[in-house]
Protein backbone atom coordinates (compact mmCIF):
# COMPACT_ATOMS: atom_id res chain seq x y z
CA UNK A 1 0.00 0.00 0.00
CA UNK A 2 1.32 3.41 -0.94
CA UNK A 3 1.94 5.76 1.91
CA UNK A 4 2.17 9.50 1.40
CA UNK A 5 3.24 12.08 3.90
CA UNK A 6 1.81 15.49 3.12
CA UNK A 7 3.49 18.69 4.24
CA UNK A 8 1.31 21.77 3.85
CA UNK A 9 2.93 24.33 1.56
CA UNK A 10 4.65 27.13 3.44
CA UNK A 11 4.43 25.47 6.84
CA UNK A 12 7.50 25.03 8.95
CA UNK A 13 8.35 21.56 10.20
CA UNK A 14 7.52 22.58 13.80
CA UNK A 15 4.17 23.99 12.75
CA UNK A 16 3.56 20.83 10.85
CA UNK A 17 4.38 18.67 13.85
CA UNK A 18 2.14 20.68 16.17
CA UNK A 19 -0.62 20.96 13.64
CA UNK A 20 -0.14 17.35 12.62
CA UNK A 21 -0.64 16.12 16.14
CA UNK A 22 -4.27 17.13 16.37
CA UNK A 23 -6.94 14.61 15.49
CA UNK A 24 -8.53 16.93 12.97
CA UNK A 25 -5.24 17.47 11.17
CA UNK A 26 -4.57 13.74 11.04
CA UNK A 27 -8.06 13.13 9.76
CA UNK A 28 -7.59 15.76 7.05
CA UNK A 29 -4.32 14.17 5.98
CA UNK A 30 -5.82 10.72 6.05
CA UNK A 31 -8.69 11.95 3.89
CA UNK A 32 -6.12 13.09 1.34
CA UNK A 33 -4.66 9.61 1.14
CA UNK A 34 -2.00 9.85 3.83
CA UNK A 35 -2.29 6.41 5.38
CA UNK A 36 0.50 7.18 7.82
CA UNK A 37 -1.76 9.79 9.41
CA UNK A 38 -4.51 7.23 9.77
CA UNK A 39 -2.07 4.82 11.36
CA UNK A 40 -1.26 7.46 13.94
CA UNK A 41 -4.93 7.82 14.74
CA UNK A 42 -5.18 4.06 15.05
CA UNK A 43 -2.23 3.86 17.41
CA UNK A 44 -3.64 6.70 19.45
CA UNK A 45 -7.13 5.29 19.91
CA UNK A 46 -6.72 1.56 19.45
CA UNK A 47 -6.70 0.93 23.19
CA UNK A 48 -9.70 3.15 23.80
CA UNK A 49 -11.83 1.31 21.26
CA UNK A 50 -10.47 -2.05 22.35
CA UNK A 51 -11.30 -1.40 25.99
CA UNK A 52 -14.81 -0.43 25.10
CA UNK A 53 -15.22 -3.43 22.79
CA UNK A 54 -13.77 -5.76 25.38
CA UNK A 55 -16.20 -4.57 28.04
CA UNK A 56 -19.06 -5.14 25.65
CA UNK A 57 -17.88 -8.59 24.58
CA UNK A 58 -15.25 -9.81 27.01
CA UNK A 59 -13.16 -11.95 24.72
CA UNK A 60 -9.90 -10.73 23.40
CA UNK A 61 -10.34 -12.04 19.86
CA UNK A 62 -13.88 -10.69 19.59
CA UNK A 63 -12.81 -7.32 20.91
CA UNK A 64 -9.87 -7.16 18.51
CA UNK A 65 -12.14 -8.02 15.63
CA UNK A 66 -14.42 -5.17 16.64
CA UNK A 67 -11.49 -2.76 16.86
CA UNK A 68 -10.31 -3.79 13.42
CA UNK A 69 -13.78 -3.42 11.97
CA UNK A 70 -14.27 -0.03 13.63
CA UNK A 71 -11.08 1.35 12.10
CA UNK A 72 -11.77 -0.17 8.71
CA UNK A 73 -15.17 1.49 8.69
CA UNK A 74 -13.72 4.71 9.98
CA UNK A 75 -11.20 4.73 7.14
CA UNK A 76 -13.86 3.99 4.56
CA UNK A 77 -16.13 6.73 5.93
CA UNK A 78 -13.60 9.44 6.72
CA UNK A 79 -15.34 11.72 4.24
CA UNK A 80 -18.49 11.49 6.40
CA UNK A 81 -16.77 12.54 9.59
CA UNK A 82 -17.77 16.05 10.61
CA UNK A 83 -15.24 18.08 12.50
CA UNK A 84 -17.78 19.38 15.02
CA UNK A 85 -17.76 16.01 16.80
CA UNK A 86 -14.70 14.68 18.55
CA UNK A 87 -12.95 11.96 16.63
CA UNK A 88 -13.12 9.63 19.63
CA UNK A 89 -16.85 10.24 19.94
CA UNK A 90 -17.24 9.34 16.29
CA UNK A 91 -15.14 6.21 16.77
CA UNK A 92 -17.12 5.11 19.81
CA UNK A 93 -20.33 5.71 17.94
CA UNK A 94 -19.16 3.34 15.21
CA UNK A 95 -18.06 0.89 17.89
CA UNK A 96 -21.45 1.11 19.61
CA UNK A 97 -23.34 0.41 16.41
CA UNK A 98 -20.99 -2.39 15.51
CA UNK A 99 -20.54 -3.76 19.00
CA UNK A 100 -24.24 -4.15 19.71
CA UNK A 101 -24.66 -7.00 17.28
CA UNK A 102 -21.34 -8.51 18.29
CA UNK A 103 -22.24 -8.33 21.95
CA UNK A 104 -25.54 -10.10 21.35
CA UNK A 105 -23.80 -12.86 19.44
CA UNK A 106 -21.08 -13.14 22.04
CA UNK A 107 -23.64 -13.30 24.83
CA UNK A 108 -25.56 -16.09 23.14
CA UNK A 109 -22.38 -18.04 22.49
CA UNK A 110 -21.17 -17.54 26.03
CA UNK A 111 -24.46 -18.70 27.50
CA UNK A 112 -24.40 -21.76 25.31
CA UNK A 113 -20.83 -22.62 26.26
CA UNK A 114 -21.49 -22.20 29.94
CA UNK A 115 -24.63 -24.26 29.66
CA UNK A 116 -22.72 -27.03 27.87
CA UNK A 117 -19.82 -26.99 30.28
CA UNK A 118 -22.02 -26.69 33.36
CA UNK A 119 -20.45 -23.40 34.26
CA UNK A 120 -16.92 -24.76 34.15
CA UNK A 121 -15.94 -22.20 31.53
CA UNK A 122 -17.35 -19.28 33.41
CA UNK A 123 -14.05 -18.23 34.87
CA UNK A 124 -12.46 -18.17 31.41
CA UNK A 125 -14.93 -15.63 30.07
CA UNK A 126 -14.66 -13.27 32.99
CA UNK A 127 -11.45 -11.82 31.66
CA UNK A 128 -7.77 -12.10 32.18
CA UNK A 129 -7.60 -9.96 35.28
CA UNK A 130 -4.45 -11.01 36.99
CA UNK A 131 -4.58 -9.67 40.52
CA UNK A 132 -3.70 -12.34 43.12
CA UNK A 133 -3.37 -9.88 46.00
CA UNK A 134 -7.02 -8.99 46.01
CA UNK A 135 -8.94 -10.68 48.75
CA UNK A 136 -11.39 -13.46 47.95
CA UNK A 137 -14.46 -11.41 48.81
CA UNK A 138 -13.54 -8.63 46.41
CA UNK A 139 -12.71 -11.19 43.74
CA UNK A 140 -16.04 -12.92 44.23
CA UNK A 141 -17.88 -9.62 43.99
CA UNK A 142 -16.07 -8.64 40.86
CA UNK A 143 -16.77 -11.98 39.29
CA UNK A 144 -20.45 -11.60 40.11
CA UNK A 145 -20.41 -8.11 38.70
CA UNK A 146 -18.89 -9.31 35.47
CA UNK A 147 -21.51 -12.03 35.17
CA UNK A 148 -24.27 -9.55 35.90
CA UNK A 149 -22.90 -7.08 33.40
CA UNK A 150 -22.66 -9.73 30.70
CA UNK A 151 -26.18 -10.86 31.45
CA UNK A 152 -27.56 -7.35 30.99
CA UNK A 153 -29.39 -6.46 27.81
CA UNK A 154 -26.99 -4.81 25.39
CA UNK A 155 -28.57 -1.36 25.60
CA UNK A 156 -28.07 -1.35 29.37
CA UNK A 157 -24.56 -2.74 29.13
CA UNK A 158 -23.58 -0.09 26.59
CA UNK A 159 -24.42 2.81 28.87
CA UNK A 160 -22.84 1.19 31.92
CA UNK A 161 -19.62 0.62 30.00
CA UNK A 162 -19.62 4.13 28.59
CA UNK A 163 -20.37 5.86 31.87
CA UNK A 164 -18.85 3.70 34.59
CA UNK A 165 -15.98 1.99 32.84
CA UNK A 166 -15.02 4.49 30.16
CA UNK A 167 -16.08 7.47 32.29
CA UNK A 168 -17.62 9.38 29.40
CA UNK A 169 -19.45 12.62 30.13
CA UNK A 170 -23.18 12.76 29.49
CA UNK A 171 -23.01 15.19 26.54
CA UNK A 172 -20.57 12.89 24.76
CA UNK A 173 -22.66 9.86 25.62
CA UNK A 174 -25.65 11.62 24.13
CA UNK A 175 -23.71 12.09 20.90
CA UNK A 176 -22.56 8.49 20.84
CA UNK A 177 -26.00 7.12 21.62
CA UNK A 178 -27.84 9.62 19.45
CA UNK A 179 -30.07 10.96 22.20
CA UNK A 180 -30.40 14.00 24.48
CA UNK A 181 -28.30 14.53 27.58
CA UNK A 182 -31.37 13.98 29.76
CA UNK A 183 -32.10 10.80 27.81
CA UNK A 184 -28.57 9.58 28.41
CA UNK A 185 -28.90 10.24 32.17
CA UNK A 186 -32.17 8.36 32.30
CA UNK A 187 -30.68 5.42 30.42
CA UNK A 188 -27.78 5.24 32.85
CA UNK A 189 -30.11 5.30 35.83
CA UNK A 190 -32.22 2.46 34.43
CA UNK A 191 -29.15 0.44 33.53
CA UNK A 192 -27.75 0.78 37.06
CA UNK A 193 -31.02 -0.35 38.51
CA UNK A 194 -30.99 -3.38 36.23
CA UNK A 195 -27.40 -4.13 37.14
CA UNK A 196 -28.18 -3.95 40.83
CA UNK A 197 -31.09 -6.34 40.36
CA UNK A 198 -28.86 -8.79 38.53
CA UNK A 199 -25.97 -8.67 40.93
CA UNK A 200 -27.95 -8.97 44.19
CA UNK A 201 -28.74 -12.70 43.97
CA UNK A 202 -25.19 -13.43 42.85
CA UNK A 203 -23.67 -11.97 46.01
CA UNK A 204 -26.41 -13.17 48.32
CA UNK A 205 -28.24 -9.88 48.74
CA UNK A 206 -31.92 -9.34 48.46
CA UNK A 207 -33.39 -7.14 45.76
CA UNK A 208 -35.03 -3.99 46.90
Amino acid at each position, binding site marked *: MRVNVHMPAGASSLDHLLEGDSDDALVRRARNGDFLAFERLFERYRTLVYRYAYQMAPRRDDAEDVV*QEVFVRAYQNLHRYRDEAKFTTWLLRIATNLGTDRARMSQRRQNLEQQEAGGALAWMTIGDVDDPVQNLE*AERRKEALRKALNALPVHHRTVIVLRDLEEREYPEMAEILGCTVGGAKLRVLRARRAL*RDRIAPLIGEENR
Partner: protein
Amino acid sequence: MKKRDQAIQYGFDELSDDEMQTLQARYQSDPEFAKEASRYRKIKHDLASMRDIPECQLSVDRLRDAIFKSEMKSRRGSLGSSITWAPLGTLAFAALAWFVIGKTGSNEGTVAKPTELQNIVAKNDEVVMPPDFLGELPAYSEPYHANSSERIIEAATPRKRRVLLTRRFAVPGKQVHSERDIVALKPDVQPHEQEHLEPLVAKSGPVVVISDDQNSENGAAKANEVETTSHVVFGG
Protein backbone atom coordinates in the same frame (compact mmCIF):
# COMPACT_ATOMS: atom_id res chain seq x y z
CA MET B 1 -37.21 10.89 42.55
CA LYS B 2 -37.65 7.58 44.32
CA LYS B 3 -35.56 6.73 47.32
CA ARG B 4 -33.86 3.93 45.44
CA ASP B 5 -32.91 6.17 42.54
CA GLN B 6 -31.59 8.73 45.00
CA ALA B 7 -29.43 6.02 46.54
CA ILE B 8 -28.10 5.14 43.10
CA GLN B 9 -27.28 8.76 42.33
CA TYR B 10 -25.70 9.16 45.73
CA GLY B 11 -23.68 5.95 45.48
CA PHE B 12 -22.41 6.76 41.99
CA ASP B 13 -21.53 10.36 42.87
CA GLU B 14 -23.89 11.77 40.30
CA LEU B 15 -25.15 14.58 42.52
CA SER B 16 -23.92 18.08 42.99
CA ASP B 17 -22.57 19.16 46.35
CA ASP B 18 -25.83 20.85 47.28
CA GLU B 19 -27.87 17.80 46.38
CA MET B 20 -25.49 15.57 48.37
CA GLN B 21 -25.87 17.68 51.47
CA THR B 22 -29.62 17.73 51.12
CA LEU B 23 -29.76 13.95 50.85
CA GLN B 24 -27.38 13.45 53.77
CA ALA B 25 -29.54 15.67 55.91
CA ARG B 26 -32.68 13.85 54.86
CA TYR B 27 -31.45 10.30 55.31
CA GLN B 28 -29.06 10.86 58.19
CA SER B 29 -31.14 8.70 60.46
CA ASP B 30 -32.03 6.14 57.74
CA PRO B 31 -29.57 3.20 57.96
CA GLU B 32 -31.32 1.42 55.08
CA PHE B 33 -30.59 4.29 52.72
CA ALA B 34 -26.98 4.43 53.85
CA LYS B 35 -26.63 0.66 53.32
CA GLU B 36 -28.12 0.81 49.84
CA ALA B 37 -25.99 3.79 48.89
CA SER B 38 -22.96 1.90 50.13
CA ARG B 39 -23.81 -1.07 47.88
CA TYR B 40 -23.93 1.19 44.84
CA ARG B 41 -20.65 2.76 45.82
CA LYS B 42 -19.09 -0.73 45.90
CA ILE B 43 -20.52 -1.50 42.49
CA LYS B 44 -19.07 1.71 41.15
CA HIS B 45 -15.70 0.80 42.65
CA ASP B 46 -15.80 -2.72 41.26
CA LEU B 47 -16.77 -1.47 37.84
CA ALA B 48 -13.80 0.86 37.89
CA SER B 49 -11.53 -2.07 38.75
CA MET B 50 -12.75 -3.88 35.68
CA ARG B 51 -10.95 -1.39 33.48
CA ASP B 52 -7.84 -3.54 33.68
CA ILE B 53 -8.04 -5.69 30.63
CA PRO B 54 -5.58 -7.70 28.55
CA GLU B 55 -3.52 -5.74 26.10
CA CYS B 56 -4.77 -5.24 22.59
CA GLN B 57 -2.73 -7.34 20.20
CA LEU B 58 -4.12 -5.76 17.07
CA SER B 59 -1.20 -4.51 15.00
CA VAL B 60 -1.00 -1.77 12.42
CA ASP B 61 -0.05 -4.40 9.85
CA ARG B 62 -3.22 -6.34 10.50
CA LEU B 63 -5.29 -3.18 10.20
CA ARG B 64 -3.52 -2.24 6.96
CA ASP B 65 -4.20 -5.68 5.60
CA ALA B 66 -7.87 -5.50 6.63
CA ILE B 67 -8.29 -2.09 5.00
CA PHE B 68 -6.57 -3.30 1.85
CA LYS B 69 -8.86 -6.33 1.69
CA SER B 70 -11.96 -4.26 2.30
CA GLU B 71 -10.92 -1.85 -0.46
CA MET B 72 -10.37 -4.74 -2.84
CA LYS B 73 -13.70 -6.22 -1.86
CA SER B 74 -15.57 -2.99 -2.47
CA ARG B 75 -13.85 -2.58 -5.84
CA ARG B 76 -14.67 -6.16 -6.74
CA GLY B 77 -18.23 -5.46 -5.66
CA SER B 78 -18.56 -2.46 -7.95
CA LEU B 79 -16.83 -4.35 -10.76
CA GLY B 80 -19.04 -7.35 -10.06
CA SER B 81 -22.16 -5.30 -10.57
CA SER B 82 -20.91 -4.17 -13.98
CA ILE B 83 -20.01 -7.77 -14.82
CA THR B 84 -23.56 -8.75 -13.92
CA TRP B 85 -24.88 -6.41 -16.59
CA ALA B 86 -22.20 -7.20 -19.13
CA PRO B 87 -23.81 -10.43 -20.47
CA LEU B 88 -27.07 -8.61 -21.08
CA GLY B 89 -25.27 -5.94 -23.06
CA THR B 90 -23.36 -8.56 -25.00
CA LEU B 91 -26.55 -10.46 -25.73
CA ALA B 92 -28.30 -7.32 -26.91
CA PHE B 93 -25.38 -6.48 -29.15
CA ALA B 94 -25.23 -10.03 -30.51
CA ALA B 95 -28.96 -10.00 -31.23
CA LEU B 96 -28.64 -6.69 -33.05
CA ALA B 97 -25.65 -7.92 -35.04
CA TRP B 98 -27.45 -11.14 -35.94
CA PHE B 99 -30.49 -9.18 -37.10
CA VAL B 100 -28.43 -6.79 -39.26
CA ILE B 101 -26.25 -9.53 -40.76
CA GLY B 102 -29.24 -11.75 -41.34
CA LYS B 103 -31.01 -8.97 -43.21
CA THR B 104 -27.92 -8.18 -45.27
CA GLY B 105 -27.28 -11.82 -46.07
CA SER B 106 -30.78 -12.46 -47.41
CA ASN B 107 -30.87 -9.34 -49.56
CA GLU B 108 -27.39 -9.25 -50.95
CA GLY B 109 -26.56 -12.84 -51.73
CA THR B 110 -23.69 -13.61 -54.04
CA VAL B 111 -24.49 -14.35 -57.64
CA ALA B 112 -24.37 -18.06 -58.17
CA LYS B 113 -21.96 -19.43 -60.70
CA PRO B 114 -23.68 -22.39 -62.36
CA THR B 115 -20.42 -23.93 -63.42
CA GLU B 116 -19.45 -24.37 -59.80
CA LEU B 117 -22.17 -26.95 -59.52
CA GLN B 118 -20.23 -29.14 -61.90
CA ASN B 119 -17.25 -29.12 -59.65
CA ILE B 120 -19.02 -30.71 -56.76
CA VAL B 121 -17.05 -33.72 -55.79
CA ALA B 122 -19.08 -36.88 -55.76
CA LYS B 123 -18.82 -38.13 -52.26
CA ASN B 124 -21.06 -40.94 -51.30
CA ASP B 125 -21.75 -40.12 -47.68
CA GLU B 126 -24.90 -40.64 -45.75
CA VAL B 127 -26.69 -37.53 -44.64
CA VAL B 128 -29.46 -37.61 -42.14
CA MET B 129 -31.63 -34.61 -42.72
CA PRO B 130 -34.22 -33.43 -40.29
CA PRO B 131 -37.65 -33.05 -41.91
CA ASP B 132 -37.70 -29.28 -41.67
CA PHE B 133 -34.06 -28.72 -42.35
CA LEU B 134 -34.69 -26.04 -44.94
CA GLY B 135 -38.35 -25.31 -44.56
CA GLU B 136 -40.03 -23.49 -47.39
CA LEU B 137 -37.51 -22.47 -49.99
CA PRO B 138 -38.24 -19.55 -52.28
CA ALA B 139 -38.69 -20.10 -56.02
CA TYR B 140 -35.96 -19.09 -58.45
CA SER B 141 -36.26 -15.67 -59.94
CA GLU B 142 -34.30 -13.55 -62.39
CA PRO B 143 -31.66 -12.34 -61.96
CA TYR B 144 -30.68 -15.41 -60.09
CA HIS B 145 -29.12 -14.69 -56.71
CA ALA B 146 -28.30 -17.56 -54.55
CA ASN B 147 -29.68 -17.16 -51.08
CA SER B 148 -28.28 -19.05 -48.17
CA SER B 149 -30.52 -22.10 -48.78
CA GLU B 150 -29.45 -22.38 -52.36
CA ARG B 151 -25.84 -22.02 -51.49
CA ILE B 152 -26.32 -25.00 -49.23
CA ILE B 153 -27.67 -26.99 -52.18
CA GLU B 154 -24.71 -25.97 -54.32
CA ALA B 155 -22.18 -26.98 -51.78
CA ALA B 156 -23.90 -30.15 -50.73
CA THR B 157 -22.63 -33.62 -51.39
CA PRO B 158 -24.57 -35.51 -54.09
CA ARG B 159 -26.81 -37.40 -51.73
CA LYS B 160 -27.58 -34.31 -49.76
CA ARG B 161 -28.27 -32.43 -52.98
CA ARG B 162 -30.79 -35.04 -54.01
CA VAL B 163 -32.58 -34.67 -50.74
CA LEU B 164 -32.56 -30.92 -50.96
CA LEU B 165 -33.66 -30.79 -54.57
CA THR B 166 -36.40 -33.36 -53.95
CA ARG B 167 -37.72 -31.19 -51.16
CA ARG B 168 -37.56 -28.07 -53.22
CA PHE B 169 -39.30 -29.53 -56.22
CA ALA B 170 -41.28 -32.05 -54.27
CA VAL B 171 -43.45 -34.43 -56.27
CA PRO B 172 -45.02 -37.15 -54.17
CA GLY B 173 -43.52 -40.57 -54.77
CA LYS B 174 -40.72 -39.32 -56.99
CA GLN B 175 -37.11 -38.67 -56.20
CA VAL B 176 -34.80 -36.21 -57.82
CA HIS B 177 -31.40 -37.57 -58.80
CA SER B 178 -30.07 -34.62 -60.77
CA GLU B 179 -30.96 -31.19 -61.96
CA ARG B 180 -32.34 -32.63 -65.19
CA ASP B 181 -34.80 -34.82 -63.31
CA ILE B 182 -36.26 -31.76 -61.76
CA VAL B 183 -37.49 -30.60 -65.11
CA ALA B 184 -38.97 -34.00 -65.85
CA LEU B 185 -40.54 -34.55 -62.49
CA LYS B 186 -41.83 -31.14 -61.84
CA PRO B 187 -44.44 -30.36 -64.42
CA ASP B 188 -45.03 -26.88 -63.11
CA VAL B 189 -41.44 -25.78 -63.30
CA GLN B 190 -41.57 -22.26 -64.58
CA PRO B 191 -39.77 -21.39 -67.81
CA HIS B 192 -37.29 -19.18 -66.06
CA GLU B 193 -36.50 -21.99 -63.66
CA GLN B 194 -36.03 -24.42 -66.58
CA GLU B 195 -33.91 -21.85 -68.32
CA HIS B 196 -31.74 -21.73 -65.26
CA LEU B 197 -31.48 -25.47 -64.84
CA GLU B 198 -30.80 -26.47 -68.46
CA PRO B 199 -27.41 -24.81 -68.69
CA LEU B 200 -26.37 -26.58 -65.56
CA VAL B 201 -27.11 -29.94 -67.17
CA ALA B 202 -25.67 -29.03 -70.56
CA LYS B 203 -22.45 -27.77 -69.13
CA SER B 204 -21.80 -30.80 -66.98
CA GLY B 205 -18.38 -32.23 -67.89
CA PRO B 206 -17.27 -35.85 -68.43
CA VAL B 207 -16.93 -38.08 -65.41
CA VAL B 208 -15.51 -41.55 -64.79
CA VAL B 209 -17.94 -43.96 -63.21
CA ILE B 210 -16.32 -46.78 -61.26
CA SER B 211 -18.64 -49.70 -60.72
CA ASP B 212 -18.52 -52.59 -58.30
CA ASP B 213 -18.11 -55.10 -61.18
CA GLN B 214 -14.64 -56.50 -61.63
CA ASN B 215 -12.71 -56.88 -64.82
CA SER B 216 -12.39 -60.61 -65.50
CA GLU B 217 -8.89 -60.18 -66.93
CA ASN B 218 -7.11 -58.24 -64.24
CA GLY B 219 -9.62 -58.19 -61.33
CA ALA B 220 -9.75 -54.39 -61.17
CA ALA B 221 -13.00 -52.47 -60.81
CA LYS B 222 -14.63 -51.52 -64.11
CA ALA B 223 -14.54 -47.86 -65.05
CA ASN B 224 -16.62 -46.12 -67.71
CA GLU B 225 -16.18 -42.54 -68.84
CA VAL B 226 -19.37 -40.64 -69.65
CA GLU B 227 -19.61 -37.21 -71.22
CA THR B 228 -22.08 -35.79 -68.80
CA THR B 229 -23.43 -36.47 -65.37
CA SER B 230 -26.99 -35.99 -66.59
CA HIS B 231 -27.57 -39.72 -66.97
CA VAL B 232 -25.53 -40.76 -63.98
CA VAL B 233 -27.18 -41.65 -60.76
CA PHE B 234 -25.02 -40.80 -57.81
CA GLY B 235 -25.28 -42.59 -54.58
CA GLY B 236 -24.82 -46.01 -53.07
